[in-house]
């Protein structure tokens, strides 16, 4: 029924009391928002909580939503702000270190464990896994400003203008942050350059 309806129209429909419209919005955006948060905070459990909180805020703020605003800009602004708050809280608690456990559980590995050695992985699947893990670490090492821009641009395909709206900075600043982020990632992953070329 609402499959072809624009996000903004769905939101307006939900404002009129049609819960099915919200269900469609949830099914459309739950996965990308979750992965954005997961890559931002780097912790699955926290990402689940923040995902839940993001949509709760959408529900509570639905009445104030205006049709003129792009729904994804609004949604990712909420999610991004929650992520920023979370990382700042965590920063106060402890500084992440390479040999600190990734999760709160004792059994979880350290960041050092997931960074592969220089020896080539035997099969392609393993190569990809190594690359992805290394990339995840490199993304986590980016500054908060650069990371959010990079994630929205590369993983959500957002235009620079929309990223600027979400982050609340000029478009040129966003572009500049993106350039720095890519530069940093290239340096971080330089030793895996050949591996990346091999990857299908």
């Amino acid at each position, binding site marked *: 029924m609402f499959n072809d309806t624009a996000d903004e129209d769905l939101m307006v429909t939900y404002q009129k*009391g049609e819960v099915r419209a919200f269900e469609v919005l949830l099914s459309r955006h*739950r996965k990308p928002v979750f992965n954005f948060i997961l890559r931002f905070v780097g912790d699955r459990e926290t990402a689940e909580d923040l995902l839940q909180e993001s949509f709760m805020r959408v529900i509570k703020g639905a009445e104030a939503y205006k049709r003129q605003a792009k729904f994804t800009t609004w949604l990712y602004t909420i999610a991004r702000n929650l992520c920023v708050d979370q990382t700042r809280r965590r920063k106060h608690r402890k500084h992440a270190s390479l040999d600190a456990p990734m999760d709160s559980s004792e059994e979880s590995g350290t960041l050092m464990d997931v960074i592969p050695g220089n020896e080539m992985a035997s099969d392609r699947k393993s190569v990809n896994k190594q690359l992805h893990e290394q990339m995840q670490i490199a993304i986590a090492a980016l500054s908060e400003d650069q990371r959010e821009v990079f994630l929205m641009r590369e993983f959500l395909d957002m235009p620079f203008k929309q990223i600027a709206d979400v982050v609340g900075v000029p478009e040129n600043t966003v572009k500049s942050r993106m350039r720095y982020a890519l530069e940093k990632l290239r340096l971080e992953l330089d030793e895996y350059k050949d591996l990346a070329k091999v990857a299908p």
Partner: protein
Amino acid sequence: MADEHDDDPDSGSLRHVFSEMRAVDEDPPARGLAELMAAARAHAPTPLPWWQRIAHALRQPPALAVASIVILIGGALVISRPDATIEEVAPTTRSNVAPTAIPPRGPSTPPQDERRAKAAVTPKDMTPPPRPRATPSAAGESAGHLQAPSSENRVVPPSWLGANSNPEQESAPSQLGLQQLSEKAALAATRGDCEAAKALATRVAAQDPAYYRDHVASDAAVAKCLN
């Protein structure tokens, strides 16, 4: 295009990795989904009844703008045609009274309708004797006076009652008339028009013999003519 990647071709291999990472995006857990839907149901506003929806639509700026324009245009039309409004009222009052109050009759017999109208307006003890109407315009005036039986009309007596109603007011004009007559008589006598002087003196004498004796007969010129 402004929105293109601002990077060099070397990042192509990096992008390849990004797209692969995207392909293996994790699914969020089903936990919390039911909770979200329950919250969505709880917070969903109940659909408004039709009259509230209309009221809501009218509160929107475009509806208000249209209403304002309609009121402005309507007001301008009403203001630009004030005569039309006045004329609309005036003939109504005239047409109600005039045809009945001024029947085409002779001046000696007051119309029955007029008398009835006067009786309705004037208290019984003030009912005047029927008076002949000298001209149709006077009748029209009177008719106009009668057409609105307001309290104002009941309190103020008709103008033709004035002569009997206030003797004090009457004496002043009469003195003035005698004075004028005697002055005219004196002027006529001075001019040598004794005929006119005599006639005027006779009128003064008829009205007030004492005044005649003191003011007219005592005048040398007039006395010369009278003699």
